Every structure is written in structure tokens, then in C-alpha cells.
């Protein structure tokens, strides 16, 4: 500290015991609060825009008039399926994969196997007799497709079946009753 520099403000080194002189606490806080509100306004915009496509899809479905029709399709590999086994197939379109499970002698169940959490493919765990989603450990009951554990909240969409002499046929996707 020399006598030749009487005015030391804004000089380095600044004579003080800490280095926080450039933080104006109240102003910083006001900025924080305001920035926070701005961020939420931005987020509200993003949420609004991101739900628009769902609204548009819903309107398209409504315009098409509720009931969908599904083509009847044979499930390949269903004829030789043993009790406790499952086979994967595609229904209603080739891009929607599904799982046919033979639960009993005459008991078949089929579900679309896109997990209702984030759409990972659900697999059949014969050993535990449960449907398992490997992504976040979601579990589904094979008897009705309802989620039993993990993040999924909706049941897997069930596929209506018709069991015939030469195998099992998919005849439609059941509506949710809820």
C-alpha cells in the first residue's frame, strides 16, 4: 500500500479481506427472480406447442369417426405355440409389434408390446410369467395387461383374438374400458 495512490477504488489488489465487492446481492437476487419467471414463460410456450400435435391427432381421430376397423390376420407361429410360451407378431400394421401368449390349454392373450411408459418393447418372461419392460423395469399382468410395477400407468392395449383350428387370428384392438 503506497502513499502515492490515495484513490484505490477499482484498483487491483483491492484492499479488503474478501473478494466479493463486485456482487450486489439484492440486484443479483432480483435478476434471479425475474430470470426465473422468464424461463417459466418460455417453458409454458414450449409446453403449449408440444401438446398441439396431440390435439391435432385427436381432432383427426374425431373427424374419422370413433370406431376403427381392423383386418383379420393370422398370427404366424401361433399353431405350434406351447403353453407358457409367447410369439411376437405385428398388428394392426406392420409397424406395431405385439405379443401372443399362450397362458393355458385354450387360453390365449395378445397385447401390443409397446410399453405404455416410453414405448420400449415389452418381452415375455416365461420363468416369472410376467410381461417385462427392460427399459425401466415395468411389469404387466399377462391376464389383463395391467401394469403391476414400475413406471407404466396404463395397461397394454389388448388385441382381440379368434382361436381357430389352424391357429390364432388377431381380429382387432380392444378399446380401453376406463
Amino acid at each position, binding site marked *: 500500500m503506497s502513499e502515492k495512490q490515495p484513490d484505490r477504488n477499482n484498483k487491483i489488489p483491492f484492499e479488503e479481506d474478501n473478494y466479493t465487492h463486485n456482487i450486489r446481492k439484492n440486484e443479483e*437476487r*432480483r435478476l434471479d427472480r425475474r430470470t426465473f*419467471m*422468464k424461463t*417459466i414463460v418460455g417453458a*409454458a410456450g414450449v409446453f*403449449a406447442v408440444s*401438446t398441439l400435435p396431440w390435439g391435432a391427432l385427436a381432432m383427426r381421430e374425431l373427424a374419422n369417426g370413433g370406431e376403427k376397423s381392423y383386418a383379420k390376420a393370422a398370427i404366424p407361429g401361433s399353431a405350434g405355440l406351447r403353453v407358457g410360451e409367447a410369439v411376437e407378431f405385428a398388428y394392426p400394421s406392420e409397424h406395431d409389434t405385439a405379443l401372443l401368449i399362450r397362458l393355458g390349454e385354450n387360453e390365449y392373450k395378445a397385447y401390443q408390446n409397446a410399453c405404455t411408459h416410453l414405448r420400449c418393447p415389452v418381452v415375455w418372461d416365461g420363468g416369472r410369467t410376467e410381461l417385462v419392460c427392460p427399459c425401466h423395469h415395468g411389469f404387466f399382468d399377462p391376464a389383463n395387461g395391467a401394469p403391476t410395477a414400475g413406471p407404466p400407468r396404463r395397461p397394454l392395449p389388448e388385441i382381440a383374438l379368434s382361436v381357430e383350428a389352424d391357429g390364432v387370428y388377431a381380429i382387432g384392438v380392444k378399446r*380401453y374400458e376406463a
Partner: protein
Amino acid sequence: MKRSWRGVLLMCLVLFLNIVFTQKAIHQYYYEHYVATIVYAALNVILFPIAVWLYRVERKVR
């Protein structure tokens, strides 16, 4: 109170409702409740001007 937290709390509420409505819209879509989906999507859209308005009102409050 030295400083008003009302704006922050209201904004948190807006964000919370945004999350709820988005979640609802998507689930109702998969449940094939299309009218409900449109309602939730519309609510989400309406929240945006509300957020802008809240911001305008609250930004000056210290």
C-alpha cells in the same frame, strides 16, 4: 416481507399445471378420449398467455 415471492409461486403453479395437462393430454389420447385430449391441449395453450400476463404484472414487484 422484504421481497415478494408471489410471482415466483404463481409461476411455479403455471409450470405445475403445464406438466399435469401435458401428461393428461397424452394419456387421454392413448385411452382414446379424444375430446379430453383436445381440452387438455387447449388448457396448455391458454396457460401461455396467462404466464406472459403474470410475468408482466409481477416483474416490477420487488
